């Protein structure tokens, strides 16, 4: 089927992790080992594609498949919008047995028509799924015909779940943006300080913790790809001066191809922690000046960083004593495996372990260097071992995603959500203050002592 195309995607010359591999390993694709039946976790390619594209808030997102794909997953991520809410409406063809037998293309076409006539979106994204892929529904053709008939972009996203993991889906979504969206419209004007953020989805408002900093520096965000984005902004992303890839290699194919096609340089950075935020702002300023922005941007950026760092330090004075020396188990992965460490070290906390799943070799080296003797990098920690570690009180708190939340709670250990289901923004300077305050709140909550107290008749 689409294996050939997928292999091309994984042969990503710009990806450090890919460069480290030998030919055979590279052929296998990225995202770690292939899936083991009976011992696999994590989302599918469709999930990954939806994560990347759904934050385009004014578009309609239509899932062509049986009810499981959309019915079990819709409106479940906290990617926020400052305006349109259409992206949160769950659209699916919800195919039935007859569609499986006779094909679902007609139903798909009529569904697109119903959406356009009732909701008038600027564009419709159509997601392929396993069953409709297997029965041979040609969504590319249906989207093409619908585009012509209705006179607006109807974009096929061909990332059915069985094609691979989430990681592949994010790349396929990036390809859909490159093929059908980015560069299809020209902006009315540009400025020398135009930038895009790639791979920032405004989870819990992360983006909004950073945009005020850009505003103060006179940096114009053309679009985030795709946090709080509007369709007609993403189309114009190709005229930005600099791309920043936020916390992830997932959209590296988009970054590299935008550089090839439109000469936009990119870098990978993070807004987690005081140090990383400063580094990212400095890099943006430097790259913009290299591309023609006023040279004083660099000095103004330094001044802003100094001011913000002083503000963070003052805000944290009351809680730092309670955080100092506390041990953290960090189970996130990717860039967060090290960027979170520096945020925690800032408060004098000790990181006893950091998961380097989905991280590059460089990420791993940085994590190791930061933790030193105090901690170790962990690739994959089975839940049973995680439970034992926490039960033995090797850590005072765990930071992880929702899936492992209850491992910590059942071991009666404070826990904080560091992934996409969380309710607070942790990015930028304000985000760092929020993160450390949340950790403080978790560590000092009195329930843990009570829950650990045996019942009087068991003493």
């Amino acid at each position, binding site marked *: 089927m689409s294996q050939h195309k997928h292999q091309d995607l994984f042969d990503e010359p710009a990806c450090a992790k890919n460069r480290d591999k030998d030919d055979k390993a590279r052929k296998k694709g990225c995202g770690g080992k292939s899936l083991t039946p009976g011992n696999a976790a994590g*989302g599918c390619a469709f999930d990954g594609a939806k994560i990347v594209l759904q934050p385009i808030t004014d578009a309609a997102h239509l899932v062509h498949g049986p009810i499981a794909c959309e019915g079990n997953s819709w409106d479940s991520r906290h990617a926020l919008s400052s305006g349109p809410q259409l992206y949160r409406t769950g659209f699916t063809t919800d195919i039935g047995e007859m569609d499986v037998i006779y094909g679902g293309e007609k139903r798909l076409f009529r569904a697109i028509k119903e959406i356009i006539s009732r909701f008038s979106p600027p564009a419709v994204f159509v997601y392929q799924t396993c069953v409709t892929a297997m029965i041979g529904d040609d969504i590319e053709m249906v989207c093409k015909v619908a585009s012509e008939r209705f006179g607006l972009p109807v974009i096929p996203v061909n990332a059915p779940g069985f094609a691979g993991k989430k990681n592949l889906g994010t790349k396929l979504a990036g390809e859909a943006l490159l093929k059908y969206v980015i560069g299809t419209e020209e902006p009315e004007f540009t400025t020398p300080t135009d930038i895009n953020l790639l791979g920032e989805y405004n989870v819990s408002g992360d983006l909004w913790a950073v945009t005020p900093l850009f505003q103060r520096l006179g940096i114009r965000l053309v679009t985030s790809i795709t946090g709080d984005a509007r369709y007609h902004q993403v189309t114009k992303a190709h005229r930005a001066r600099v791309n920043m890839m936020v916390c992830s290699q997932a959209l590296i194919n988009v970054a590299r191809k935008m550089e090839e096609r439109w000469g936009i340089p990119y870098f990978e950075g993070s807004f987690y922690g005081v140090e990383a935020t400063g580094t990212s702002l400095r890099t943006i300023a430097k790259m913009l000046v290299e591309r023609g922005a006023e040279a004083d941007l660099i000095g103004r950026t330094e001044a802003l960083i100094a001011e913000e760092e002083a503000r963070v330090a003052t805000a944290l004075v009351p809680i730092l004593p309670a955080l100092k020396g506390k041990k953290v188990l960090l189970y996130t992965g990717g860039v967060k495996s090290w960027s979170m460490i520096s945020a925690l070290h800032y408060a004098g906390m000790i990181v006893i372990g950091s998961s380097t799943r989905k991280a590059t070799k460089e990420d791993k080296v940085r994590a190791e260097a930061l933790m030193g003797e105090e901690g170790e990098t962990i690739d994959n920690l089975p839940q049973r071992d995680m439970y034992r570690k926490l039960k033995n009180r090797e850590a005072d708190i765990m930071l992880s995603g929702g899936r492992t939340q209850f491992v910590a709670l059942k071991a009666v250990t404070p826990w904080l959500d560091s992934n996409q289901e969380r309710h607070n923004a942790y990015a930028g300077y304000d985000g760092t203050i929020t993160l450390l305050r949340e950790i403080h709140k978790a560590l000092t909550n009195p329930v843990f002592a009570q829950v650990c107290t045996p019942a009087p008749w068991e003493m």
Partner: protein
Amino acid sequence: MASVAKSSKNCTVNPLKTSQPLGGASAFMGLDGCLPMLHAAQGCTAFALVLLVRHYREAIPFQTTAMNEVTTILGGKDNLEEAILNIAKRAQPKVIGICSNGLIEARGEDIRGDLKLIRQRHPELDGIALIYAKTPDYKGGFQDGWAAAVTAMVDELVEPDFARHLHQINILAGCHLTPADLEEIRDTVEAFGLEPIILPDIAGSLDGHVADNWVQTTMGGTKLDDIRRMGCSVATLALGLQMEPAARVIETRCDVPVEVFPRLTGLLAWDNFVAALARLSGKSVPASIRRRRSQLLDAMLDGHFYFGQKKIAIAAEPDLLLGLTGFLTDMGAIIAAAVTTTDSAALPLVPSQGVRIGDLDDLEQAATDCELLICHSHGARIAERLGLPFFRAGFPLFDRLGAAHKLSIGYRGTRDLIFEIGNLFIAADSHHHSAKGGKDAPVASH
């Protein structure tokens, strides 16, 4: 009473329904030492898992055969075999509950045949039950999957036996019942000196207890040996119409008589259940239960002012829909809009003019002049848009605590429902009054 209509749209807008495999796997969560698994691509499990974790706020054991494009072409048997062997080695389950999905069923795979072959080749699996439920996600919904899984459990495990244990009764529990509901049922049945075998018993596994160790399967739930001896019971009580097919399997095999209870919410509905227990046990109704009945009578009298002629819009799976709408009309309310997920024998019994098999968009369109909206958590935004009071019921409930402990059956559950929903009406009425009379208007008192 109700006429049943199906939505004619090609595009489902804001789905009400969740999938059959998710319902099937949820039923398997109610078996002890079980590892439920979807024979599907890994994403199917991941989405379903997230929903279950958010609803129950528990670690949920749940696996996948991780089908991919190539294995879809070649057939899923190798993945099924590898998954079972991996799970057996790693998690030491007593039972693996296997639910198929659309990908597998559209290919027409012979899973029963595959399992037979796998068993022959691996005698080390002899101590582990392998139960397969056929649950394509292009048909039906959560409730159908749950029912299919329970039917598969009894079909696979119940042993043909005609001996009778005079105190033992079977309780087949539909997916509309929460762990708290099952606790109430168990307590009531035991109060008559009867020994219930509840299947599936999610009150044992998903009631949110803190255990002393970590296992990779369900902890608590119906024991396999108890299912095997269900043929020795004096009766099978099917709770929800969805449970009737499973009950009939036991009846056919072991001659255990079936009694179906379409609903357990509401005075007369629970009276029937209590009367059946009195009859089966030969005992009179205990004083504590009579006392609770009396409390409910009082709550009905206190509460009816607020329910009378209230127009209600509700979306729920068929058996839950029947239970709640029955209760609401018992209290004098009117079901102005009823939307459900899938066809069922329960639908014609719903006390409203019509029931639509549809989505939350259908609910939103029909609910505009209603005074209360009832739905799972995805209905919250609709209630907000329409400015209606909102009562959460069904699966998933991810935006509130305590989904497992919501009690809405029996005398106590019905009493508390009257208070909870009645208070929503009171709050809306007083808001309405103060909006009309200016900010200092007195709150109406009755």
